[in-house]
């Protein structure tokens, strides 16, 4: 069953048509990759899914409910988490606190006035955060201010934050860019693992074909704001149009 259905979505920026009549559906518990040249509209599409942008036309259904017109936090509460192309973390907070916040958000909802409680007393939240840090290989950095992390570490932290929310749909915008090869591989493994364990759906944008081909079950190629093809990885790799427009030697 398709958990995410994008129908006829278009988006213009002034004179520029960033998206034209995009149709896409993502199957539940699958990994769906979106690839395409720079400026094809991939990030724009993602922005339409999480409420950062409102498409000019079309509809977006998540679990058969429309996400359009909802605030980003409401969409997140529906079960969509997103990793940004440039890491978005709480720079002035420590790594540990960064990890706690999404877990609180998942447990307590969009707002809760827990002003008289102490973080240390929230044992289970702290434990979950610890576990996630372990999983992301960042436990030793838990007291660092996250702004002073190196770039790859910031990205790993952000992924961890999203994963800790146990979303039903995880949107990843170039999650492994700038990540060391070893960690890229770890991340691939982690994503595979949680997808299986936690019954999660993943939509991923990536230029690193190694990542795309190791993870994706289906791939949509976007070019100039419209889907060019949608197919299995093998077929995409073999598609001459895609090779020429996008893959180049990497294929």
């Amino acid at each position, binding site marked *: 069953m398709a958990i995410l259905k994008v129908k006829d979505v278009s988006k213009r920026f002034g004179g520029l048509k960033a998206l034209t009549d995009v149709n896409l559906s993502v199957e539940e518990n699958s990994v769906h990759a979106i690839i395409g040249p720079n400026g094809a509209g991939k990030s724009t599409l993602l922005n339409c899914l999480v409420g950062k942008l409102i498409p000019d036309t079309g509809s977006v259904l998540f679990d058969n409910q429309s996400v359009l017109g909802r605030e980003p936090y409401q969409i997140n509460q529906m079960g969509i988490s997103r990793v940004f*192309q440039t890491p978005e973390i709480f720079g002035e907070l420590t790594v540990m606190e960064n990890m706690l916040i999404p877990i609180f958000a998942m447990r307590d909802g969009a707002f809760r006035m827990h002003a008289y409680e102490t973080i240390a007393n929230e044992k289970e939240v702290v434990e979950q955060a610890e576990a996630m840090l372990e999983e992301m290989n960042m436990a030793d950095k838990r007291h660092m201010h996250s702004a002073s992390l190196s770039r790859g570490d910031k990205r790993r932290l952000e992924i961890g934050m999203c994963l800790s929310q146990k979303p039903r749909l995880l949107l990843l915008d170039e999650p492994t860019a700038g990540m060391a*090869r070893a960690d890229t*591989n770890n991340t691939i493994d982690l994503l595979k693992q949680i997808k299986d364990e936690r019954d999660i759906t993943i939509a991923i944008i990536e230029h690193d074909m190694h990542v795309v081909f190791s993870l994706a079950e289906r791939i949509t190629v976007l070019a100039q704001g419209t889907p060019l093809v949608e197919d299995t990885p093998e077929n995409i790799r073999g598609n001459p149009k895609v090779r020429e427009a996008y893959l*180049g030697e990497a294929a």
Partner: protein
Amino acid sequence: MNEKPDFSRNANMASTAPSFLSVWDMHSYYGESYIVQGVSFNVHEGEILALLGRNGAGKTSTLRSIARVNEPEVRHGEIWLDHKPLHNMTSYEAAAAGLGLVPEDRRIIPGLTVEENLQLAQIAPPIGWSLERIYELFPRLGERRKQEGVTLSGGEQQMLSIARALARDIKVLLLDEPYEGLAPVIVDEIEKTLIHIKQQGMTTIIVEQNAVRALQLADRAIILDTGCIVFDGTADEVLENTQLREEYLAI
């Protein structure tokens, strides 16, 4: 540490050719955090040097130290470019002396259009490529010249960042993860450009997580680990040495 083979035999120090850029015993700090811990290397004119290492190894910090920005602060060491002491300079003096940095987070200036971002690079002499030539290499930027720089797609921003460095007549190009977020075909394009400008005598230091690609391009390679050089040799040596690759690059 003991079991690790000693790769840092520093071939180039022994070399007789006069080095163009040389870094000698450089130590840099972020506040009290000691990050670059005594790095020394030489680069010859017209050479491409790959600077590799894990996340948080100190690659960015090394490049930034050479570019003389305020953070990290170089507390000890010397940096010479073409007989000029960079270590006594501020960042704009270093830039005037012929250094160009393409920072990892792209640093497109908000509030300025694409074209203004490029014009900005041509205010202080020496002036390099003309805007026409830049738009020829990156037609996408030409199409978007009136758009605000920060609204570009991730890959387009990366192009702009590289273009901005080329718009100045520099002698040494410092590239911090230039391929990140770029479509494979574009990466091919940029690679060609790098080879092209190398032939015209440009000296380049490239930091890249996609180590294989970087090594194919580079003449020499340095591997950093926790702020120290653990290997300094030719690019081919790294490609051939599986132990080294597994240990530090996981490839």
